[in-house]
């Protein structure tokens, strides 16, 4: 395997199975509120950029052998994908748990 993909592959191995479990457990609830994890995932991109700008990733001494040679605003491309997927996964888990309750707070009563 090309070692440049090691960082990317290492987090995909953890995150992708968790997405499969989340969709298996809550696909009905997620199909009604699919836009919420996407909004939160979008904020993950801003978060990744903030890491890049604040730390100038060279200072984190990332090993160039294990990452792809693409950066945007000093953050690696993988960091954007990682943050998007991580934010989306936590948001999916939250949506599933919040909408599990029979009567959540702030819903209109008929």
């Amino acid at each position: 395997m090309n070692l440049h993909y090691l960082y990317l592959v290492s987090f995909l191995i953890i995150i992708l199975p968790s997405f499969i479990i989340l969709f298996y457990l809550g696909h009905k609830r997620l199909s009604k509120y699919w836009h919420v994890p996407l909004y939160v995932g979008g904020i993950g991109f801003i978060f990744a950029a903030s890491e890049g700008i604040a730390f100038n990733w060279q200072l984190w001494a990332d090993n160039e052998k294990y990452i792809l040679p693409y950066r945007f605003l000093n953050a690696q491309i993988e960091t954007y994908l990682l943050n998007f997927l991580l934010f989306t996964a936590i948001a999916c888990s939250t949506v599933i748990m919040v909408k599990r309750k029979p009567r959540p707070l702030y819903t209109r009563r008929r």
Partner: protein
Amino acid sequence: MQYLTSQVFLLEGRGFIKNKIAIYFDCSNKKIKMLSYSYLVWLLIFLVTPLLFMWVFYQKLLRHYAHIFVVNGLLVVFGLIWDNWGTAHRLWSFPSGSNVGYRFLYLPIEEYIAFGVLFTFMVTALTIIILSYSKVTK
């Protein structure tokens, strides 16, 4: 080159710190000064501040779903294991100059506070708030 300089920095890291400022050389041998509290400052700006705002304005709503914060916090344990693995295999590292210097296993204490607690709390709180305003899509 960057890797080699970072190795030197890590080996001698604490020795470089003078008056809470770490002196570091990047791949083009350019001298960079960095506060040893820069990770904490970043935490304060990008995690603690939004969390405080959300807590102040949506306290009642967030308290109602307190158990979800605990469950999501437990899920992130897998992320911390991955983070430790990556640091142990030198996929990435945390130079001594950018954090206060206390470590548990391979990670600095700030990483546990950021990734394990504050990060999860912020994303969960954000999702609950967005969810309270969102309508069902058909």
